[in-house]
């Protein structure tokens, strides 16, 4: 379980997250939505400590991430993250992108890592691309490799930060399909997204952020049909 407890984050004098508390249970799929600059990415990045919270705590399976004694590398290894701009390793092939961390971090043998990686590439429909370098892949293919790379660590949680925002429209679906099947397999996921249709269909819960505050949390049906706050109403009017 991921538990965010009274989290605040400032960059210098700019406070971008205000006392956020939320929980993500095993198997939950949570969509995080909100206007640009509302702090969605920052919140997500606090969950694996790419950003260090200014105040408050983040718990992963009962481990307090903000405690200096916690081995953050161990915790990160069980949280996969997918970025808007993929961040594949450009000097490694698709397959090497997948095998690198499992071998380095978990000490898997090359044979084990490669067979896991091939299975995952197959799962995302890219088994024939294993020897391609990232710059020879389309955006959608890159993002699918990036998802597979995160899954290669066999994480218990997956964080997605606008995984389809940098894609050409015709490639959005192939990535969302992979995420859907991942959600269907019971993966715990937190997804920052502008794809409201996807959020409605796949998420168990929608978290609406505005101005750095968690303004509303509700099941998608409720959130999209009858938002409680004016801010959520205004946001939905713009995006739907």
């Amino acid at each position, binding site marked *: 379980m991921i538990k965010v407890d009274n989290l605040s984050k400032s960059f210098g004098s700019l406070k971008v997250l205000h006392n956020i508390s939320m929980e993500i249970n095993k198997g939950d799929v949570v969509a995080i939505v909100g206007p640009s600059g509302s702090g969605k990415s920052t919140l997500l990045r606090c969950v*694996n400590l*790419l950003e260090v919270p200014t105040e408050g705590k983040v718990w992963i399976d009962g481990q307090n991430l903000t405690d200096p004694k916690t081995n953050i*590398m*161990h915790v*990160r*290894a069980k*949280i*996969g*993250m997918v*970025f808007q*701009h993929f*961040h*594949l*390793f*450009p*000097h490694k092939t698709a397959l090497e992108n997948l095998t*690198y*961390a499992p071998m*380095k*971090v978990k000490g898997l043998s090359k044979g084990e890592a490669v067979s896991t990686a091939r299975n995952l590439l197959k799962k995302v429909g890219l088994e024939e691309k294993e020897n391609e*370098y990232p*710059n020879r892949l389309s955006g959608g293919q890159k993002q699918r490799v990036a998802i597979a*790379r*995160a899954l290669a*660590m066999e994480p218990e949680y997956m964080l997605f930060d606008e995984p389809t925002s940098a894609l050409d429209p015709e490639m959005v679906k192939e990535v969302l399909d992979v995420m859907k099947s991942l959600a269907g397999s019971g993966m715990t996921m937190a997804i920052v997204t502008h794809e409201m249709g996807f959020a409605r269909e796949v998420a168990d819960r929608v978290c609406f952020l505005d101005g750095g505050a968690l303004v509303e949390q509700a099941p998608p049906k409720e959130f999209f049909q009858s938002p409680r706050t004016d801010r959520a109403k205004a946001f939905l009017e713009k995006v739907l």
Partner: protein
Amino acid sequence: MGFSQIYDSIPYILYGIWVTLQFVSVSAVFGFIWGIILALFKISRVTFLTGFADAYTFIFRGVPLILQLAIIYFATPQVVGYDITAFQAGVLAFSLHSGAYISEIIRAGILAVDKGQTEAAQALGVSYRPMMKDIILPQAMKNILPALMNEFITLTKESAIVSTIGVLDIMRRAQIVAADKFLYFPPLITAAVIYLILVTILTLLGRAVERRMRRSD
């Protein structure tokens, strides 16, 4: 113009190529390793390390190389009591000196690597050392190869100043022949041509490596 008069001394000068190459390659390897270490100091968050590396670069880039060389060669025996050879003094001075320049090149190269690469590695639980070694430095190297090659070419040319402490490199040999025959133009021109050829070869080599690396893009 007198080239015929130094004809039998040309092999003697040519042998200096071997001395110069030996000297330059050893210095280049040490300077490169030292440059990487200094660059890592510079980007670290440890104030002491960044302070040290910055001060180091300031000093070694600010003092003329020929003076650094003289200090190391003539002062070391008196201060440390170790009777340093001219070759060792040369390698030491050039490694320390080029380390300062190379560290700046590498630092810039590391900073030019997309921050997302670091974040992707961190998010996968990869710790600092393997991340630097396997993810960041290989990408930085590719960007800085032209600048690095330039530095090695400079090193080759500048290496001629080790002749001032008596290393028998191309330059020194040309001077010896000149003094011996009372004939300056032919031996010095011979040395100049040799340096030009060396630099040309290094430049072509650099381009070939660059092309190879670009292929994997």
